[in-house]
């Protein structure tokens, strides 16, 4: 991503930062909630039930006082007590159901969202991963999802419930006594000011917190990944100092929100009491007008109950604000990720024209025609590269680092899209082949061998259902059986993170076995002599020879035997093929290849 684009995304994020509600984001989130809409319906049914059971309780209290206690009539008090207990039990049951349904709604929706992000991310092309650090993607799929999930249990949904509850309370109060209700809510402007103050303070605070937290996590992530380097260069103290600075800033950024939250919580409670005081005072002034003392007492008691119930949700508003704000920021980040869509190898709208000289197998099983390519907006890495790999032939590519050799492989498997020209496999433009088919036909063995957690057999199969005999056969043929013989569990041996319990050379051998088991139609090899010792080298050479027999092979060659035995050698420099021919031809031509070889003769003898 260019700096400008990064800045724009950053600015956009800051726009939403601190907001507790954003309609656009809500609409986008709705997509993931909708499949579980039934749970939402269940909640919509349960919520008023819980509310009804709860709000009926003070009413029973009023009846008890007005009709029994205050007038000295004990009969019927038992019935009210039993009813009250019944309401309590019902409320508890329905509240449990409500929580359960909400959590399930949240968890299922977030599971869906998580899968969606996973699928989305895995569909992206290689360039996407070049600039998107693993840590960031990981955060999207774990912490950010958790933040949104919180919203279901404690955020928007309960806010709706709170709102309904508050409205219901006001309605009940109005139905009992209009003027007294109005007296109660004389305190509302005060409440409003408080809410505004809190919201602003929290928005400011959260914005800062988020940026610092992100910096802190990225910092830790990198230092853990590079722990060996950190230790060998005794960078511990300096790194700890730099971390300390962000850490301290993170702590301090919270202070504002702590103050705002405390003020909100405590002052709302106080305002609630002020309202009660107002109600009592008002009731006392009315008595002079001849109102019944008993009725007034009952009314005041009930109002006290309802006022308490009204102010509790307001009091918890700042906590919910924090949850909502976190959820919105997380949604914004997730949506930004989802909106960045650079699909890997998308199917082309119309078939690309195939030049006559590569139609069918005319040119070769693999053919490059005038291919140009650049990573991003930079300098072209390939400029007009054309060559053929005939069926069953071996083509070796040599050239200095950065000459574009490895890029050829990435383009052939369509990890990156070419900017111009065409690449053809079996007479089809690779852009017109289904990606799955293309990548099944072309098997790449790269220098950097990646292994997954699991067993050796899992890593050799890698998603295919080869039987054991086939794996054993492949292992034997490339000489990897020696690697496994040294370990007790052989094919069932455990592979730890990234194959860390195997040396680079051992991983190489296993990668060859992995390719061998697939019996690929087209083999692409990025030779890595540097990782393998002479003994293994010999074994591999034999294994590779076996693997290459009768197979179409494109090899980035480092070994003399490979180069000399190739049917065609391509010499690359700065993105162009500067020489092509067999070893003997190129030596005879006395060009770059010959010069290159002389360098080595000098260095080696």
């Amino acid at each position: 991503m260019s700096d400008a684009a990064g800045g724009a995304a950053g600015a956009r994020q800051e726009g939403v930062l601190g907001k507790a509600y954003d309609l656009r984001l809500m609409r986008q989130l709705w997509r993931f909630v909708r499949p579980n809409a039934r749970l939402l319906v269940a909640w919509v049914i349960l919520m008023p039930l819980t509310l009804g059971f709860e709000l009926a309780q003070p009413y029973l209290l009023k009846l008890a006082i007005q009709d029994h206690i205050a007038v000295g009539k004990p009969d019927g008090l038992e019935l009210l007590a039993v009813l009250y207990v019944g309401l309590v039990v019902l409320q508890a049951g329905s509240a449990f159901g409500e929580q359960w349904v909400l959590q399930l709604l949240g968890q299922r929706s977030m599971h869906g969202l998580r899968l969606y992000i996973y699928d989305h991310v895995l569909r992206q092309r290689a360039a996407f991963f070049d600039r998107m650090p693993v840590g960031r993607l990981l955060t999207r799929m774990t912490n950010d999802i958790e933040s949104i999930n919180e919203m279901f249990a404690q955020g928007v949904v309960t806010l709706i419930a709170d709102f309904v509850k508050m409205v219901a309370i006001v309605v009940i109060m109005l139905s009992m006594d209009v003027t007294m209700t109005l007296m109660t809510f004389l305190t509302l402007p005060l409440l409003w000011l408080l809410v505004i103050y809190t919201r602003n303070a929290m928005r400011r605070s959260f914005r800062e917190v988020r940026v610092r937290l992100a910096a802190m996590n990225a910092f830790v992530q990198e230092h853990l990944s590079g722990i060996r380097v950190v230790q060998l260069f005794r960078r511990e103290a300096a790194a700890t100092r730099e971390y300390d600075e962000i850490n301290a800033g993170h702590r301090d950024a919270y202070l504002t929100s702590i103050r705002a939250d405390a003020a909100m919580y405590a002052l709302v409670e106080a305002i609630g009491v002020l309202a009660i005081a107002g109600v009592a005072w008002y009731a006392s002034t009315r008595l002079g007008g001849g109102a019944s003392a008993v009725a007034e007492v009952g009314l005041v008691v009930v109002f006290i109950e309802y006022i308490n119930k009204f102010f509790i949700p307001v009091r918890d508003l700042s906590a919910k604000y924090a949850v909502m704000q976190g959820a919105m920021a997380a949604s914004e980040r997730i949506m930004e990720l989802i909106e960045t869509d650079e699909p890997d190898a998308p199917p082309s709208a119309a078939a690309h024209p195939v030049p006559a000289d590569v139609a069918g197998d005319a040119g070769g099983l693999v053919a490059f025609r005038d291919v140009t390519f650049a990573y991003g907006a930079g300098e072209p890495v390939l400029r007009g590269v054309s060559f053929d790999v005939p069926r069953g032939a071996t083509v070796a590519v040599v050239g200095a680092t950065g000459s574009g050799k490895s890029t050829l492989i990435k383009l052939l498997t369509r990890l990156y899209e070419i900017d111009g020209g065409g690449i053809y496999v079996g007479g089809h433009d690779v852009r017109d082949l289904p990606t799955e088919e293309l990548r099944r036909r072309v098997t790449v063995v790269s220098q950097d061998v990646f292994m997954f957690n699991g067993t050796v057999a899992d890593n050799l199969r890698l998603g295919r259902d080869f039987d054991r005999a086939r794996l054993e056969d492949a292992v034997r043929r490339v000489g990897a059986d020696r690697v496994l013989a040294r370990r007790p569990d052989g094919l069932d041996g455990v592979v730890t993170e990234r194959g860390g319990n195997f040396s680079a050379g051992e991983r190489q051998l296993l990668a060859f076995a992995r390719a061998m088991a697939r019996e690929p139609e087209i083999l692409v090899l990025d030779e890595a002599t540097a990782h393998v010792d002479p003994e293994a080298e010999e074994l591999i050479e034999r294994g590779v020879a076996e693997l290459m027999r009768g197979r179409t092979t494109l090899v980035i060659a480092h070994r003399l035997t490979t180069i000399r035995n190739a049917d065609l050698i391509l010499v690359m420099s700065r993105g162009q093929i500067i020489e092509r021919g067999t070893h003997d031809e190129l030596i005879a031509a006395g060009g770059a290849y010959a010069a290159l070889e002389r360098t080595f003769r000098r260095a080696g003898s």
Partner: protein
Amino acid sequence: MSVPSSPTPPAGALTPWTYVLRYRGRIYVGGVMLLLTNLLFLGVPVTMGMAVQAIGGPDPAGEVPRLALLMSAFAIGTAVTRIVSRVMIFNAARAAEYDLRGDLFAHLLTLDPGYYRAHPTGDVMSRLTSDVQTVRALWGAGILNLVNTGFAFVTVMVMMLRVDPVLTFWAILPFPTIFVIGQFMGRRIYRASRAVQQNLGALSNAIQEDLTGIQVIKAYGVEDARRIGFVEHSEKVLASNMDLTRVRGQLGPALAAVGSLAAVIVLFVGGRRVLSHDIELGNLIEFNGYLARLAWPTLALGWMLSLLERGRASWTRLESLLRTRPAVADGAGAALDPEEVAGDVRVEGLTLELEGRRILDDVSLHMTPGTITAIVGRTGSGKSTLVDALARVIDVPPGTIFLDGRDVTTLPLASLRGAIGYAPQEAFLFSTSIADNIAFGFGAGSTLPKARADELDRAGIARRAEAERAPVLIDGEPVPRIADAAGAAGLVRDLEQMPQRYRTIVGERGITLSGGQRQRVALARALASRPRVLVLDDSLSSVDAETERIILDRLREIMQGRTSILISHRVAAVKNADQIVVLDDGRVVERGTHDELLAAGGVYAELYRTQLADGVAVAEVAS
């Protein structure tokens, strides 16, 4: 973490409360304020009861406004003390969180590679994020509610007794069940929380693995198979979260029921006592007010219980991290004078076993200043382990490795590692500028990912340490130490082709360097540290042969009077070394110069033959 330079966690007993108790002053003030809050707050139901009583009394118009004012005064007083108590306790929790984060980070930096093999980064990161948050919640909300609930129960109980001991007895009858519920549910919540954390850790590992291996997943078309694994992990998270919900969901209503049951009893028993004139109606209202005061603390108790259990589960994970002893400890002896280190390295009878396998077997070597020693051997022969042993990344038995005659196990690690410059094969660089990466070698520069630093800048957050750090660039030009190192590592031409030159950002939102370029930046970093002992661990494997030759030629000059160790498979790289050591199965099987070894006709000669055929050096015609 109070002192950044002491990277060890506090010794002695670690309890979940150790960190927050460092701020016990604030906690005490907060506690006293909470007590005041509870006392003042009692004034509210008292005055409320009196007000209700007064409404039904002889002089409501005279009494009630006075009581209403009093009630308001109590409310405002309560608000003030409550604000102070919350600010104090929550600030203490944040301060303790800051300490904990600092200690965790500093401690992580001391742990050896073995720890990181057993604990994937994703797992460690999840401890540093979600576990720290959970523990902090325990300190803030946990302590606040614990203290508050205690005070609330005590003060309310006293007031209730004052009104009517008989009614009090009946009212508190249901409350002891809270403890039964707590005992029973607490354990279940703990187990359920731990399962959630474990499943989250496993999920984040699975994601991390898939993202790191994305190229392989794509090239081999493993998307579907990997997706199945991912779905399983995600479903486990879902299921364990629902388990937790079920347990927690039962707790809330159960506790609410206890409170409400008490209210019913008060209504029923209290009502009868009013009717029998044992107490006044105002007393009942007041009593009811007290009970209402208990409703929230009781509910909070349940929430706290789950907070406590979750906090404990998270703390266990953090504590086990903090308790992990670094496998390699500082030597007790005095540090070497960095200016005086000659770089004489002697290995005597070094035998090392790792995970039951003998990696090095009775290895003896002497590398003198001013010479280049090459170590050659097949994969798994122990070459890299030997290098790790030199810098004590892997620990060694005493009396086996000596730097300038000093047993390395007696040296402080910083002193030992300060003498060694290391360029690894898999070059790890930070997402900062090339200049910062090279400056890393001599402790300057920043390692904060540049994209994050920019974000802080955009948010207007100044970073204090920026000004304090030694500059790496002056007017866009690198300081000489960086420029020299870059030159020696053959980076000058590459840098000229980058528009941002030394400011070029590596990695995240920056350019993607080629493997060879990365290795050379790593080499420059090692050279910038001006090491007495330079170790190149196959660190030019991705660099083309011509560049490698130039770099190695120059190296002899740069490392004049100092010790260089080269690990390589390539004859071209090692043949000019003063001493070539061949390792096989952890043993030194040959040693000598190129010519001597060739004449001996052993493993080395065999290697030579593989790489040279027909008199042509071809280890790579053009890597």
